[in-house]
């Protein structure tokens, strides 16, 4: 039993990374955030409960049969066979050890002798079953065509997903796109935008948007426009010819809105090592030094939020 305990402890230890992952809280509901963990948790729990139940049941049967077995043995005047040995022999329809000579062959190789026990019935019928399964499988997929092959399965999966997404978007009052997108200003949303930026954009645009492979996002020069709608559009569709990938398949509309809003706040932050300006001077309405300071403050707050979320 103590061995089992250790195994469970090890298993529990292995679950730790999932638990830590579960702590990356955000505004989504607990269930949405932790769907994976919940499903896995339920699966593990089910298995554990099933195992405990099975062990208990077997223990009970063992006890009962041992009594019966002992009684039979006493009646026949022989040593009682242990539960497992008894069960195992019957299960495999093995000739009992004492009667082994009845199935002994005359084969002997370097002192190795061979018995000729029957094929274990469960094994044999299991084999037949897998053959039937194989035949059935081929008929189902390739003769009657009832089963979906890879391509059809894919088409159905995509159609079903499309339906679900549309239903969800309808319930959310429609899709945010480049014509309807609005600048977000709430600190939490900008912070979320920064997180998305760090994970996806910083590699090419620099940790502070100063530009490396991709252009500088902190100056007043924009190649594809510096207003929120243009930034959103550039993120969504990318500029594949110049290496900016379209993000619409990887980021949802609201994520693109958040990161576009964050990028919007970067203008005028003057980070170190800025890349030379590219594109045209783009004057925003009402831009002032105040907004620069505000953005800088935001950044520190964001940092705190990020660290707290680690």
């Amino acid at each position, binding site marked *: 039993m103590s061995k089992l305990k250790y195994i469970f402890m090890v298993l529990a230890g292995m679950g730790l990374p999932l638990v830590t992952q579960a702590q990356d809280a955000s505004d989504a509901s607990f269930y949405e955030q932790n769907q994976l963990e919940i499903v896995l948790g339920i699966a593990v729990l089910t298995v554990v409960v099933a195992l405990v139940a099975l062990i208990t049941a077997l223990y009970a049967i063992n006890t009962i049969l041992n009594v019966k077995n002992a009684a039979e043995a006493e009646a026949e005047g022989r040593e009682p066979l242990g539960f497992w040995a008894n069960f195992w022999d019957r299960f495999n329809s093995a000739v009992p050890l004492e009667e*082994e000579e009845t199935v002994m062959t005359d084969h002997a190789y*370097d*002192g190795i002798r061979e018995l000729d026990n*029957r094929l274990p019935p469960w*094994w044999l019928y299991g084999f037949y079953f897998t053959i039937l399964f194989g035949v059935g499988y081929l008929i189902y997929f390739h003769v009657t065509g009832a089963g979906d092959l890879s391509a059809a399965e894919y088409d159905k999966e995509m159609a079903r*997903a499309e339906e679900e997404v549309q239903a969800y978007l309808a319930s959310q009052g429609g899709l945010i796109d480049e014509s309807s997108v609005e600048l977000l200003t709430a600190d939490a949303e900008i912070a979320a935008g920064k997180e998305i930026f760090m994970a996806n954009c*910083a*590699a090419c645009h620099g940790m502070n948007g100063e530009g490396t492979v991709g252009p500088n996002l902190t100056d007043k020069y924009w190649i594809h426009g510096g207003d929120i709608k243009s930034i959103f559009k550039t993120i969504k569709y990318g500029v594949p010819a110049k290496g900016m990938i379209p993000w619409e398949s*990887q980021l949802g509309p609201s994520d693109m809105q958040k990161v576009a809003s964050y990028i919007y706040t970067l203008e005028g932050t003057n980070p170190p090592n800025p890349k030379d300006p590219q594109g045209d001077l783009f004057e925003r309405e009402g831009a002032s030094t105040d907004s620069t300071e505000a953005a800088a403050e935001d950044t520190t707050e964001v940092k705190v939020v990020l660290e707290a979320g680690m």
Partner: protein
Amino acid sequence: MEATLDQKQGTTKAVETFYYDNAIVRNFLIASVIFGIIGMTVGLLAAMQFFWPELSFGLQYTTFGRIRPLHTNAVIFAFVGNGIFAGVYYSLQRLCKTRMFSDFLSKIHFWGWQLIILSAAITLPLGITSSKEYAELEWPIDIAIALIWVVFGINMMATIIKRRERHIYVAIWFYIATFVTVAMLHIVNNIELPVTLFKSYSVYAGVQDALIQWWYGHNAVAFFLTTPYLGLMYYFVPKAANRPVYSYRLSIVHFWALIFIYIWAGPHHLLYNALPDWAQSLGTVFSVMLIAPSWGGMLNGLLTLRGAWDRVREDPILKFMVVAVTAYGMSTFEGPMLSLKNFNAVTHFTDWIVAHVHVGGLGWNGFLTFAMLYYLVPRMWGTKLYSKKLANTHFWIGTLGIIFYVMPLYWAGLTQSLMWKQFTPEGTLVYSNFLETVTQILPMYMLRALGGTLYLAGVIVMVVNLVKTAKSGKFIPEVKAEAAPLSKGYQSPKSDGWHRRIFEWRPVNMLIWSLVAVAIGGAVEIIPTFLVESNVPTIASVKPYTPLELEGRDIYIREGCYTCHSQMIRPFRSETERYGEYAKAGEFVYDHPFQWGSKRTGPDLLRIGGKYPHSWHYYHMLDPRSMSPGSIMPPYPWLFEQDWDKETLPAKISAMQTLGVPYEDGYENDALGDAESQAMKIASELKSQDITVSSDKEIVALIAYLQRMGTDISKVDGVAEN
């Protein structure tokens, strides 16, 4: 040694005296242990590179992509391979009551095999590879393997033919099947066209290459790691337990069922890949049908221990055997489950598969080898085991090592796969950045390395124990035995069963029918894939690689990128959303060899072409973490120092032409010029992104290939029919 006369033939022939050759057994045993330790150490290094990428040491010879093949080849062909030969040479002589046919062939076999291993250990870190998993070695070594294997086969068959025991025991059936099947697999899979001494191209391309490779790869597991070890089990388990084999008829049924069915199961490595659906389905159903034949072996092993279970508690040899056979049963049940499409969809390309093969490798092959070593060394040195306690310690450390190896990887594989597949309600991937799913499972990789360390520590404990044992005794190179020779004109009595009459005293019959049994499955799957055009629908816009791209592809192969990156987008929403349009069979018709990969430690690369600017790849190859913070990919600085190979480029183009790639006649003369101008163009594009690089550097060729990958298909409207 007892000298039983064949009583049925009532022979009165004089008993002959002869000697068993133990020296050759000892040589193979020692080689197995030494290469086992080396192979496992390399494996441990590779395992630690997952969470400690600096362990590449900044050297091109020690990156994961190059030492992973070194690890797999070392443990399969050097550790297990030498283990097989040791066990076969020991048991075959005794089961046939004769010395090996030729000491000279035995020696050629031994030294030839060790030279092959040595050449593998040199060429693989140098990046000389054909990139076909477990068959990475280049063509000269492939030829050497074929020759030495045939030497082994001749020596074995000749020994069987001059035997003094009328019937051949089940262990020998397995040895014979191993010999013919491995020969067939090795030769067919390694048909390649040499370009230079160290470079060749597979004659097969794309889908066909993949099918043949996994027909080979799967059956390397079947006929190198399974059937010879079943043979060893049939010899050493009854010997060590001193019990009769449980069921002769089970041996017959499971032997033939196993070798016939196993060969069909290869396509389960390519489920949801761009392989024709019918071939995938055959892979699935034959894998499921394989459960019982595999378990037949397990049952015959375990049930042979009936009546000896009290000794299992005390005898470390039997303990190792029980765990080995149980691990065999576990992995042969798991294999068929992994071949079911819905489970495969979750586990393929993940660490689950790595865990699965290590249940078999560490449990079945490793533990059975250890049992054999503990059995043989005291007998061959005429002494007793130095310490039973140390052997028990080894057993427990090893078992714990296996648990710590596989459990974290099962968990890691499942976790990562589910993360790959998770969508937001808006229809985008929750973990759109692949790297998030990697960093999530880093703790599991650490635990796995702990498991590997434990297992290796156990092996070292064993070595100490065995060396002390050997030192306490004296090696017995020759063992005297006596037996009467077989009489001529034997006819099998009618009272014998059909199998005994047809096969068991006619080894050549056994050899031929084994070959027939294993040839059927491969032929049915492979031949139509070549001959029936609808299996690989052509796509008009798919064109051959430019010379520079071909050169870049060879660098991709050399660096073993396929060991971590697939080029196979499966038809799942979670993959097409992440990577792009799913892979079509017709896209790979010029891929000699295919590069589909089998494991995604990093993301799929099939549609990487055009996704990022050249400069991204430039910085990423120089230091992956600069573009992808937290990446566990090693840097490749030598690509920025070494020049791509201009010398052999014309020969490469000619070779591709020979293989049917439609370059124009005489294009090999223009190839270099085209390559140089494309390299210049890329260098100038990089220049515009503030990067100065000589167009001769390997990185330029690699960028050319990466930017081409998977882009042809987008040049037509819509996607070709599949």
